[in-house]
């Protein structure tokens, strides 16, 4: 056991020694201080001090870019033609620019099918010919699973047709997933402020518009007097019934008890009774209904 432990300790120390050697020049890191050196083959050594602060920042996020991958083989004339056509076709460059990774709408990659360092990426893909063009959604998942193959095709020599087909597939895919992907399309998760509000002062002062309409009916004194003095009369009875209905409804409302009819239906019932009352007696009945309003402070 001891021997095993010693052996492991030796292995560990060897590893540390390897890492602790001169693998990284720490002194140079300290000498350089805060520095971002962009080696891009074009601007090396030309940066001035004014641009240093800007240069210290990382570039803009590009996780929302789509992916266009072109899978080619060696000694493939069609592959060479596609690469040439791509650089010359504005429609294809509008989708992905191989020469300008920052300005390109989509991330562009060119993979060699026999490159063992990349072959594992395409284990799930069936190739029918080369070059093969694949389009995938952004890694931000704004349009669903970024591994989804949105478009796959081989090249028939027509760059504009290829660009048109790719764009059509992207549009079709976006239309499909927009309904199902959270946060894409559809209504916002809150009620936004109105775009055109004719009475904007309403946000600053208390509302004066009645927000509740209560139906009040005067006590039917005339109906009672009619019944007492003239005997049975349909309009007088209707007047009493209307008052009774409104009274009972108001009591139930005050007691938070369930109502048999909603306000609209109840209003229509009262209107019908009132019409019947009016038709039964040409003269105006003793019962008068009026609307009063309450306001919220």
């Amino acid at each position: 056991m001891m021997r095993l432990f010693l052996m492991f300790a030796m292995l560990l120390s060897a590893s540390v020694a390897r890492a602790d050697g001169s693998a990284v020049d720490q002194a140079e890191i300290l000498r350089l201080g805060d520095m971002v050196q962009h080696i891009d083959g074009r601007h090396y050594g030309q940066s001035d001090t004014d641009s240093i602060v800007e240069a210290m920042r990382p570039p803009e996020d590009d996780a929302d870019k789509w992916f266009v991958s072109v899978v080619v083989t060696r000694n493939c004339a069609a592959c060479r033609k596609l690469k040439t056509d791509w650089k010359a076709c504005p429609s294809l460059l509008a989708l992905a620019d191989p020469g300008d990774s920052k300005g390109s709408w989509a991330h562009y990659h060119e993979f060699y099918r026999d490159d063992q360092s990349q072959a594992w990426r395409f284990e799930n893909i069936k190739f029918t010919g080369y070059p093969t063009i694949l389009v995938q959604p952004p890694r931000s998942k704004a349009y669903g699973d970024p591994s989804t193959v949105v478009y796959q095709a081989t090249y028939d020599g027509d760059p504009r047709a290829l660009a048109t087909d790719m764009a059509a597939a992207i549009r079709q895919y976006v239309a499909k997933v927009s309904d199902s992907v959270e946060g894409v399309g559809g209504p916002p998760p809150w009620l936004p402020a109105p775009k055109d509000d004719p009475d904007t002062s309403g946000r600053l002062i208390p509302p004066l518009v009645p927000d509740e309409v209560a139906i009040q009916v005067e006590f039917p004194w005339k109906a009672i007097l009619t019944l007492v003095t003239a005997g049975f009369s349909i309009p007088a009875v209707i007047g009493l019934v209307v008052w009774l209905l409104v009274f009972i409804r108001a009591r139930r409302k005050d007691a938070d008890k369930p109502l048999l009819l909603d306000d609209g239906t109840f209003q229509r019932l009262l209107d019908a009774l009132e019409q019947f009352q009016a038709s039964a007696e040409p003269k105006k009945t003793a019962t008068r209904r009026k609307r009063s309003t309450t306001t919220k402070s």
Partner: protein
Amino acid sequence: MRCFLLVAALCGAAVAAESEQLAVDLPKEVRQWFFNPDGSCVQCSIGMCGVDQNVPAAATLLWDTEYGSRERGGSGPSRVARYCRQRGIRVYNVTGTATWDWMKWAVENGRGAAIGAGRRHFQTLVGHDPTTGTWYVCNNNSPGRIDAYSDAAFRRLHLASGQWVVVLDYPPHPARPKYVRWW
């Protein structure tokens, strides 16, 4: 034997994170190519980023190829700048306090970063989970596994080597494509 198992278990604190979810999603077999036998940790780390972003000139730094002669042994920022210029590799060579922002930017946008990690050592940052504050790093001394670090531990790790990171100026790799019936 028990002692060995104990140490192995402690080393096992290195979490075998699901590599496909990380910014650098290389399979273990490919990461093994970048094992560091001779103090070439900077080139191993950059090479791993190179293969992940499909940049052959960076991926083949350790070997003699048509992209250039092998680059072996220790490095500093100036040597990296030199061989990247020679090979036409576009990189951001960042030292100092901005390295934290650059590391976050790289992994959030699907890229790896070759970073100072450990005393005089370089490793590959392969992912970051901001919700748990976990950083995922592949050490070229043990490229078969992915090590997980808390924010504090990762800070110590990075500062131990000096603040220097190298990020390749190329697009990130696409996710491994698969067929999904979306139409």
